[in-house]
């Protein structure tokens, strides 16, 4: 039975990959762009879930890393004229450094206090970007990233994005299956017990936070390149809430859960926004229903059905 389900799973992944690779041949630009956005948010959600589902913390300021990644990449391309690969790497490294500072102060706390302090830090960064017109463009944002001609066309960028996201997801997958990933889960399960088997819990969470920050930054940079600009809304708390919502909707206790959540929310957002401008209200209702009826997310529901 297990072998059969593994084979089925393998075929499902093969189909998904074939679909993603062939869409540009028969789909419109709109769908290619939508899939591109999904891929980026899948990375953002899975990177966030490293701290949420695996580390058992409540990171409510992930927008700080996503937005900083977006601004770093945009500024380096627009103002410093750096080559794209270097700008992308820097867009991961700067948020990672930021995560060291935020994590150093916030990981002393747990639960709601950790959530609040990460939110506060992210709002501080949002405030800086909002006010610092000469550098960040303030509420106008930065528009018009010069992309190399090879990746400028929508379809070429789509493929580039797929490759980068796939590499990042592979790295994250390896990390969650590593001894470090096991220790993160142990911390989620029982912080005190983990400390008493000889683990420096805060240091391990800080490393997890930095890894999460790095990949959220890369996701932010990819999104800036897709939108051809960086805007303060990437740094706003709504982005933090949205990514946590994606993780909870899909299910935080599995690797693919947040990816599923990201895909569903992007589809819902694109559908809802054609009917109403109050898409956040609809998202709020979804969250309330989820917490009440599907605390394990969609993956959790699937496991429940299997179990019964």
């Amino acid at each position, binding site marked *: 039975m297990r072998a059969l389900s593994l084979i089925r799973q393998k075929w499902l992944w093969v189909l998904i990959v074939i679909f993603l690779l062939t869409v540009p041949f028969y789909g419109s630009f709109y769908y290619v762009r939508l899939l591109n956005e999904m891929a980026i948010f899948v990375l953002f959600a899975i990177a966030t879930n490293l701290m949420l589902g695996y580390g058992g913390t409540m990171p409510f300021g992930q927008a700080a890393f996503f937005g900083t990644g977006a601004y770093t990449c945009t500024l380096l391309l627009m103002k410093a004229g750096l080559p794209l690969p270097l700008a992308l790497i820097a867009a991961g490294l700067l948020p990672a450094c930021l995560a060291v500072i935020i994590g150093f102060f916030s990981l002393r706390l747990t639960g709601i206090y950790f959530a609040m302090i990460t939110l506060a830090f992210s709002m501080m960064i949002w405030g800086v970007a909002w006010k610092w017109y000469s550098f960040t463009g303030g509420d106008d944002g930065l528009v018009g990233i010069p992309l190399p001609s090879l990746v400028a066309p929508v379809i070429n960028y789509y493929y580039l994005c797929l490759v980068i996201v796939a590499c990042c997801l592979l790295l994250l997958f*390896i*990390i969650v*299956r*590593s*001894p*470090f*990933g*096991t*220790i993160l*889960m*142990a911390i989620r*399960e*029982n912080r*005190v*017990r*983990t*400390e*008493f*088997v*000889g*683990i*420096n*819990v805060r240091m*391990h969470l800080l*490393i997890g936070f930095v*890894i999460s920050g790095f990949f959220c930054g890369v996701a932010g940079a990819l999104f800036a390149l897709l939108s051809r600009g960086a805007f303060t809304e990437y740094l706003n708390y709504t982005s933090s809430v949205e990514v946590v919502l994606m993780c909870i909707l899909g299910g935080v*206790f599995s690797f693919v859960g947040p990816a599923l959540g990201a895909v569903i929310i992007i589809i819902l957002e694109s559908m809802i926004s054609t009917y109403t401008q109050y898409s956040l209200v609809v998202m709020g209702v979804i969250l309330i229903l989820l917490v009440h009826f599907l605390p394990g997310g969609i993956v959790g529901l699937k496991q429940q059905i299997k179990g019964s």
Partner: protein
Amino acid sequence: MILQVKVLSKSFGGLRAVHNVSLGVKKKSIHAIIGPNGAGKSTFFNLISGHLHADEGEVIFKGENITKMPPHRICRKGIGRSFQLISIFPNLDAFENIRVAKLAWFRKSLNLFSSSEKMFRAECEEILDMVGLSARSADLAGTLAYGHQKQLELGIALSVNPELLLLDEPTAGMSIAETATQLKIIERVAKDHGLTVLFTEHDMEVVFSIAEKITVLDQGQILAEGEPGDIRNNEKVKRVYLGKRG
């Protein structure tokens, strides 16, 4: 002496939970700490293992002052502990519970790029076998029976290759049969691996059956200390503790 505690004190607000307690634990001995509820036994354990920091006094382990060390460093020095209320990883299976401790002990916790799946299989199986949980290896720890969870916690404490094992009420809440099994495991493991065991316990039968030395705490202070026979006949102990039971 493997462990020496010198005039240790800890207060919570106005309450003196542990007050000027000094004691020595001999290497490879089984030493019990008893006392009525609220005597300060758990606080005393938490002070030794770094869960709490003492207001005054020192804890010396193998000649090194560990008083201000954080728990993870104390653990690495060779002190493993269990808790009064079961403390395991409930949503990981029994095998993974042990593996977490093994990964920590072998300093693999910062390994980001190898799969943990095949690591320390033999070592984990050996520990599960030692605590009698081989048949429960794949069960989620949170779904195990209470007695098995206690055994698993003992297994986690043993996985960090301790020289000194601190057991906070290792048989609390267990049935008579489970208590007997647990005691046998503790005695056998201590003997086979040359461990020193310091434990707190409510059940006098348990204490007198395995302890070589007993320290009686009352209101945060040492009331008496000696071999089981001395403690059984000590008038003060009978009055404040043993007498109350009967």
